[in-house]
């Protein structure tokens, strides 16, 4: 199982966290940011990104607005106040999950 499949369940958390740190982003920008932050290790492929973005929007965690760039419509996403709350909950859950994994698998925290 590759890193991408293991991260599939955390896609929403990744998106929400990116938007908390970058205020507003569009789809392609998100894929590139994930690639950059993970040194090319994590690629948002198989079209998982857009359905996840729209799901977060439908759940009320994201809101959108559009801008015309080079004569085409670009859709930007940003966090709603509920989304801001959700990102904090998701980060807490993820932290607890990683701590449990470290204990269960006897892993040492990653160092860079």
């Amino acid at each position, binding site marked *: 199982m590759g890193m991408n499949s293991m991260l599939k369940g955390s896609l929403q958390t990744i998106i929400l966290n990116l938007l908390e740190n970058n205020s507003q982003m569009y789809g392609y920008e998100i894929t590139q940011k994930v690639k950059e932050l993970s040194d090319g290790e994590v690629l948002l492929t198989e079209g998982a990104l*857009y*359905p996840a973005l*729209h799901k977060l929007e439908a759940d009320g965690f994201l809101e959108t*607005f559009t801008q015309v760039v080079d004569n085409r419509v670009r859709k930007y996403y940003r966090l709603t106040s509920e989304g801001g709350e959700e990102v904090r909950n998701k980060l807490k859950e993820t932290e607890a999950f990683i701590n449990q994994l470290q204990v269960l698998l006897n892993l040492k925290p990653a160092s860079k």
Partner: protein
Amino acid sequence: MKPTPQQTAELTNYLKKELKFRESFEEIYDHILSALEHKADDANFQDTVNAIIKEDFGGHNRLPEIEKRIATSIADDCRRKFRGFFVDQLKAPSIFYYLPIGAALYFILDALQLAPKAVQVVFVLIMFCPSFLALFRYFKGGYAFEDRSASARDKVFGFTTWLPLWLTGGLILWMPKLDVYFIAHAIWGSGSYVLPAILLTLAMMYNVAVYKLYSDEFKFAK
């Protein structure tokens, strides 16, 4: 890489054939063109587009499935917003505007002593408003988005249009029987306009919710 106008037109035609809805087209089209900006100028256009679709969307055959998931989420979002627009009017502070409106309707109906049939006609007219708005939405959509493709929101707008028509149709069919009951219990006619005033206020709230949903779609149109 900066695609030529002909290459851009080719990509547009291809995506229009593969994707049914305006929203998914706009997003995938922008994604591919944004990705192309970071590719080498001398690369083959078609091969590069194929590679982007394979890398970022899992291949050409996955586009319809991705679109279906996008459309489902957009429709869910649309339903959530519509519910919100309607329910919010039943809460403070909006309800404090509707209470005097409802009371004013009651006093106007009472002062005019309108026949139940006349009240029904007013109600039917109000319930037809979402249908007119839906027609205008189709008309305006073509200009505002410069695209006549279907929208993932169409289904929800269809529902908001048909629901009041079904209710009105049901009301017309059942009215002769309801009339007898309502008049017998002094709910309707015989100088009592409480129920008509409540129904007209709710119909007004419904129309406001449909209008807000309509405005929300065009909020960021060009």
